[in-house]
Structure formats: structure tokens, C-alpha cells
């Protein structure tokens, strides 16, 4: 087990380094010049060169990469003397348009993204597994037909459409929900939830679709599996049979959930934009728009880190849920 974990962590670190390199290369490959965006107006060549030197974007991709990796461990300093700005380790870079290091920016945005992701994850899990299980147990019934349709709809409509609809209907037409904004949990837990209901509904609606389908299919498979048929034949109660069946459902659901939650934690660009929430997705988008290399690399890497860690946790949980994996 320890060897397995060590190997997985080693692979994860290698992956992250590779992702950082690819992101930096792609950024410069797309002929984005952060100095141009930060040069002001007018922007004569001397000014642009000065700005570029200060931001250290005048160096090669390989140099950028080495400095970035070094910065993660020992921090980075831009400029000289009284003009210095320092970015403490772990330094994901310094965002000049925001006059702040990226680590701080990520930390500022994380509560928003966390609130959004966790609420949506819980809601989609409850709705998804609930409806999925109900429709498997009463296959062909009203609930089954409704949830299959619901899932189909959720899978096929784009997030922004659902988001805009929720804002229009619940926000503007019914005046029932706030159409934008974020209140921190520590400030007021009720206001916090109140402001997030809209985005939670949108995200969980989109995500629940997958869980409904997986739960339903998996549960139907399990219920018709030989060992459960045998159990039923020997007079086990429905409750007992179902309990066994659920274990089989958990494996794919956990794997899927790990992916979804970590993706949500990396920021949900569209839901954040629609509801004027300033989480990581919004940060990444503004970084791309403003040619802000540090934000692009920092947020990408942070999201990749979450995805890798999330998958690692899911993989480690698997043997606990399924003895067959433990033995293999």
C-alpha cells in the first residue's frame, strides 16, 4: 500500500510539473505578451521593454519555467531596490494587474469556490443518487420516467442557459432569489446560503443527471446480479438485498464524484460569471483576458493539483468500498 501511495504521489508531482511547463509554453506560444497589456498608453518600445524586464516576461520559456518551479519552493523577487515586490513561497507567480501574488488571490477566491462547489456537490449527490435509486427500484414507474427525462435534459442543456434561466425566472421575474453577489459564511450563514441557492441549483441540476443515470444503471445491474438473486431466493428482505446492492453502486459513484468535486473546486467559470461570483473560475478567465501569465499558470496548476489529489483520494477509498479491489 505504501509503495502504491508513494508511486502515485511521485506520478502526481511529475504531472504537475509537466502541466506547468505546457501552460507556460502555450501561453507564450499564443503570442500573448503580458507587458503589452500592462504597458499603458502610449506604449513606446522603451516603456514596453522596461515593463517586460520588470515583470520578467522578457525571458525564455525555459527560464520562466525554472523560475516558476524555484519560486514554488523559495519564493520570487521582481524588480530591484525600493521597487521590489516579493512573492513568498510557495509562489505561484505575481499578478501585476492585481498588484498581488497569485497565492493570495487564490486564497481570496477559494471561499467562494469552496462554498459553490461543496453545496452543489452535496445537492447533486442527494438528488442524483436519490432519483437514480428510486427509478431503479421502481423501474418503469412515474419516478423513473420523470428522472430519466430530467437526466436527459440536464445532460443536454448548456450551463449558461440554465444559469440565465434561473437568474431570469427566480431573480427578476419572481424576485425570489438574489441574482448576484456573495456573502461569506462567517458574516451570515443564512445570507451565505441564500445567495448561493441559485448557483447550487444550476450546477447540481447539470451534474445530477450523470448520477441519476449511473446510479440507476448500476443498481439495476446489481439487483439482477447472481448473488443478489440468490439472496432474494433464500428469503432475504428487500432492505437487506438493497443494502448489498448499494455497495456495488458506490464504486463508480465515488470515482465520478471525485472528478466532479475537484473540477468544481477548480472553479466553475460559467456559473460564476452568470451569478457575478468571484471564485477561481472567474479569476482564471480574467487572467486569460488580461494576458496575466501568473494567474493563468497559478490557477491552472492549482486546479490540476486538486484534480490529482481528488483522484488519489478516490483511488485510496476504492479498496475500502470494494473488497475485490483490495484483494487484487
Amino acid at each position, binding site marked *: 500500500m505504501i509503495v502504491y501511495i508513494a508511486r502515485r504521489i511521485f506520478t502526481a508531482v511529475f504531472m504537475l510539473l509537466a502541466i506547468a511547463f505546457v501552460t507556460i509554453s502555450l501561453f507564450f506560444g499564443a503570442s500573448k505578451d503580458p507587458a503589452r497589456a500592462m504597458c499603458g*498608453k502610449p506604449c513606446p518600445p522603451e516603456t514596453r521593454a522596461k515593463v517586460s524586464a520588470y515583470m520578467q516576461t522578457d525571458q525564455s520559456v525555459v527560464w520562466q519555467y525554472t523560475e516558476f518551479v524555484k519560486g514554488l519552493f523559495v519564493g520570487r523577487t521582481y524588480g530591484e531596490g525600493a521597487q521590489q515586490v516579493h512573492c513568498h513561497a510557495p509562489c505561484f507567480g505575481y499578478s501585476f494587474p492585481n498588484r498581488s501574488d497569485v497565492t493570495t488571490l487564490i486564497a481570496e477566491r477559494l471561499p467562494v469556490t469552496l462554498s459553490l462547489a461543496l453545496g452543489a456537490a452535496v445537492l447533486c449527490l442527494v438528488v442524483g443518487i436519490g432519483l437514480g435509486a428510486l427509478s431503479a427500484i421502481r423501474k418503469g414507474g412515474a419516478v423513473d420516467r420523470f428522472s430519466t427525462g430530467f437526466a436527459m435534459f440536464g445532460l443536454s442543456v448548456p450551463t449558461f442557459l440554465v444559469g440565465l434561466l434561473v437568474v431570469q425566472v427566480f431573480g427578476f421575474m419572481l424576485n425570489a432569489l438574489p441574482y448576484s453577489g456573495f456573502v461569506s459564511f462567517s458574516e451570515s450563514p443564512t445570507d451565505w446560503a441564500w445567495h448561493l441557492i441559485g448557483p447550487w441549483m444550476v450546477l447540481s441540476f447539470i451534474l445530477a443527471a450523470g448520477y441519476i443515470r449511473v446510479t440507476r444503471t448500476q443498481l439495476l445491474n446489481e439487483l439482477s446480479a447472481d448473488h443478489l438473486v440468490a439472496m432474494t431466493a433464500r428469503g432475504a428482505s428487500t432492505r437487506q438485498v438493497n443494502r448489498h446492492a448499494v455497495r456495488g453502486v458506490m464504486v463508480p459513484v465515488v470515482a465520478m464524484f471525485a472528478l466532479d468535486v475537484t473540477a468544481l473546486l477548480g472553479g466553475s467559470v460559467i456559473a460564476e460569471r452568470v451569478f457575478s461570483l468571484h471564485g477561481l473560475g472567474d479569476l482564471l478567465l480574467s487572467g486569460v483576458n488580461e494576458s496575466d501569465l501568473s494567474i493563468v499558470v497559478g490557477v491552472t496548476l492549482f486546479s490540476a493539483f486538486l484534480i490529482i489529489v481528488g483522484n488519489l483520494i478516490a483511488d485510496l477509498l476504492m479498496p475500502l468500498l470494494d473488497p475485490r479491489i483490495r484483494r487484487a
Partner: protein
Amino acid sequence: MANRSRRVVPAGLALVLALVTAGCNANSQSTEPTKDKNTTALKSAPRGGTLHYLSRRATESFETANAQMVPTSRLRWVHRGLTSWRTLPDKDTILVPDLATDTGTTDDGGKTWTFTLQEGLKFSNGSPITAQDVKYGIERSFAPMFQGGLGYHKTLLVGATDYDGPYDGKELDSIEVVGDHKIVFHLTRPFGNWPWIVSMPAFAPVPAAADTEPETYGEHPVASGPYQVTSFRKGSQAVLDRNPNWKADTDQTRFAGPDKIVLDMGLNNDTIVQRLIDDKGEDKTAISNALISPSQFQRIESDPSISDRMANSPSGYFRYLAMNVKRPGLSDVRVRQAINYAVNKAELQSVYGGPKFGGQITSTIMTPGIPGYTEYNLYDGGDTGNVDKAKELLADAGVSGLKLTLTYPTDVSAIEEKEAQSIKNSLARVGVKVELKGLDGNTWSELVSSADGDYDMTTNGWGADFPSGMSTIQPLFASSEIDNGGGNASKFSNPEVDAAIDAAIAEPDLDKAAEMWAAIDKQIMEDAPIVPILVQRTQALAGSKILNYFIPAYPPFANELVVGVDR
């Protein structure tokens, strides 16, 4: 700021253009009156009430060192400058003194400029506003941590290229302070528009003693204007209350009507527009920087209770087609003139939303409202173009079967693609085959601002930073603006024009300079390096209890310093 849409989307603010007053209208056919109750300017705003500002920017700041906002914007609720702008719906924008007693004097033909501050002015913290504070504010804008912003002064002040700001104890000697109230600027060249330059954000006073944490100074600045920031939550909300030390009789441009201003930031653009359309609760006293999309015009237009609250600019941004004169297919002036005749501007006008919302067809470089703007049309083929005349010119040039490329940014808005398609269709009418090359915005802007750009034509937009040919003609047509990120997308290079531009820039008599720019405008168009297309309008919506909200001729933004709240 070569590209208008690009600038407007992320940066939001900035600049420019002009106006069409009733008398100097470029195109009577396309003009419709844009008067509504909000275009009638009041001489003052009622005192009291709370003004709400809904901002689509992720965060707002009251930092002046790197700001790129016009002097009539919300930044100036808090900060004054040496000079400022007075705007009226139906007149040209004029420069007026702000902290200074006049708009500057020069006795050496525009190379040295002197300003004297009014006596008795105080900051919100009670300390007097001195020439030294103005100097320090300007010096801060040179610090590398404040890159960006309107930096004309950084290219004009003596010794500016080697100066890196005040934080290592160095001063910029070309900003000379005499006593508490006199400030003298020494420039590297005569520059007639310097009095306009000192209205820009970097010329707001900053007391050095208060600048202990430069990176966040803009969140809690010391105020010289009528309001001070009393609460600031980054990316969320700023609350402004009155600055008790500001005196109305020392200020010619700020009405300071509302008692309080609440600025909400980071809002979704479409949500803001929807809220302003709905006009409920506090949104009745709200203004914003949201952009109204063409799809919303119909809704607004159909309901007078909404359209009455919409300010529409009499003028706007310059939209044009640049022709790369260095390319073999376009090196003959007759070919470029033929293309001027061939383009169907009426179709392009409807692509942009028609005469009322989209803009007015134009045939000059400067736009109405920029001093010196004169209506003329060297290639008058009517609004839909003159195919015969174009064919004739192409035949004269001995050109047939011409193939050209047209590049444009694809990610700015879908309109640019329709615009390119329309131009392609126009030119097909005269036998010119156009290949469209849509590019990612960054790639596109690098391409059109480099010397050896591999393209024949590109669409482009422009807005001036201050009302002068200096801010419209020079950036687009001076040969120094070819390459290195310059805005000369036509690669137009004419030594006579360059000399005339230099002379106009130097001229300290701005009336005379305006005449010089008018002549240069025509001189360039004789070479036909571009096809002028439109003067694009801008629109903005306000709540039903907002007074005095209008977009002047120039700049194409509502003056946020003069709005009042109807209680």
C-alpha cells in the same frame, strides 16, 4: 489602444471621441435626434440622496498612478487634477482649471508649462494641497509597480525615460516646484496639448506622508475631491461619503449632488442592464458602466419608460478599414481610392445596429467634436458605394483579378466577422476577391502592430484619449507608429505628413493646431490609406431617479461627476 472593442471589454474605460452637434453633422441622412430628458444638462445637481454605481469590473480602485479613465469618470469623485473637463450635451467639451487657477501658461512655445494652485485647498485629512503633492502623485506613476495607465507624460517630461518613481528617494527634476503653489513642467519637445495631459489621472495630488502602503493606497486614498472612501471591500463594494474639506466654489466641474455613493463591483454585465431596465428599489438611483448589447435595444426602444432613461452618444468611436500600403496589391493609390468607392458603408452601418444605435457613416479621420473636425468626402460614392467609379479607378491602375486578404480579430465580438464579410461582398462587386482571415485577438493585434505584417487589409477601431488630432491622427498615421505595437496598421509613411504632425503637436495655440490637424486629415485621405466607415455610438442606461445623465460629444461616456439624485 488600437482596438476599440478589446479595450472596452476588459479595461472598460478609457477614452474618447467626438460629437455631432446639430450644425456639424457628417451625414444628415443618417442622423436622428438623440435628445431625451437626460440630454438636457442642469447647471447643478440637487443636494442629498444616495447614488448607486453598478460596475461590471471585477474590482474598482481609486488609484490614480496607473488609471486609464477619463477625467469625467468616478475616479474623480475622490481625486482632482490640475485641469479637468466640462462637458455639455450639445457643445464641445472644454478644458477648465481644477486645482490650478488657469489651464497653464507657456512662454517658450510649449516646452515649459507653468501652473499655479488655488490658495487654501485642503485634503480630506486636513493637510493643505501643495504643488509638492501634485509632483509626488505624478512621480508615483513612474514606479514599476504602477505600470499601465495613461502615460503621455512619461514620454514628454525631461529625464522621464530613466526615472523609476519616488520610492528609492529620487525625484524627477523636470517637475519643478516653486513655493507651495507653483509647479513647472519641463518637456523634451514643445507640446501644445500639455494642459489636456495634466487633466489625466496621474496628475492628482498624493501626500507622500500618506503613501505608506503604495500597493493598496488606491483602496483608502486621501481625497482632494468632494468624496472620500469610507469603506472598501475589494471586488465587492466601496462606500463614499462627503469630504468635508472640499469646497464647491473652488471646483468648476463636480456638482457633488448625492450625499453618499455606493459602488458595487464585479457584477455581471447583463444582470446590471436587466436591473436598470427593471428599475426597482435602489436601482432607481443607479448608474453603471454596463454595455448594452444590440439584442437589448429593441426592448428598450419599445418602452418609453426605459428609452427615456437611456443616454445615447451623439458621436463615438472611429471605425475604419486599414489598407497595408506596403503590400504590392495596395501600393497604387488608385487601387486604395477604388476600395474607398467600393465599400458599402450603409450595409456596415446596419451590421453595427443602424444609425440610431450603431453609428454614423463617415468619410474623415477625425470625428465630429474633435477640434478641427471638418466634414469632407474625397471619395463620395454615396452610402452604398459607387461601383462604376471604383471599376474605373482599378482599370486606370491596370489592375484586374486582384486578390487581397482581410484580417480581423475573431474573439472580440461576432460583429467583426459580419463586418469583414460585408466588406468582402462589397469588393466582390468590383472584381476584387477578398480572403477573410479571422485571428485570435492577441495574434491579430501583434500582427497589425508589427512592421512586416503579413496582411493586406484589417478592420480597426479607435478612440482618442483627449480631444485633439494628436490623439487620433498621430497614433494611426505617423511613421513612428509602424511596428513595436504602434497603431499604424496601414503602414502609412509620408515624410511630409510626419513633419506636419510634428508641427501640429508642438503648436501651443490649440485653435491654430486644430486647423493644422484638419489639413493633415485631408492630406492623409488623399493618399487613401484607410476607408473611414463609421463613428460608432455608445449607450448607457440610468435609474428613473437619476438626473443630469447624458453622454457628451466627447468623450463617449456619461459624465459621472455631474449626476444627481431626484429625491
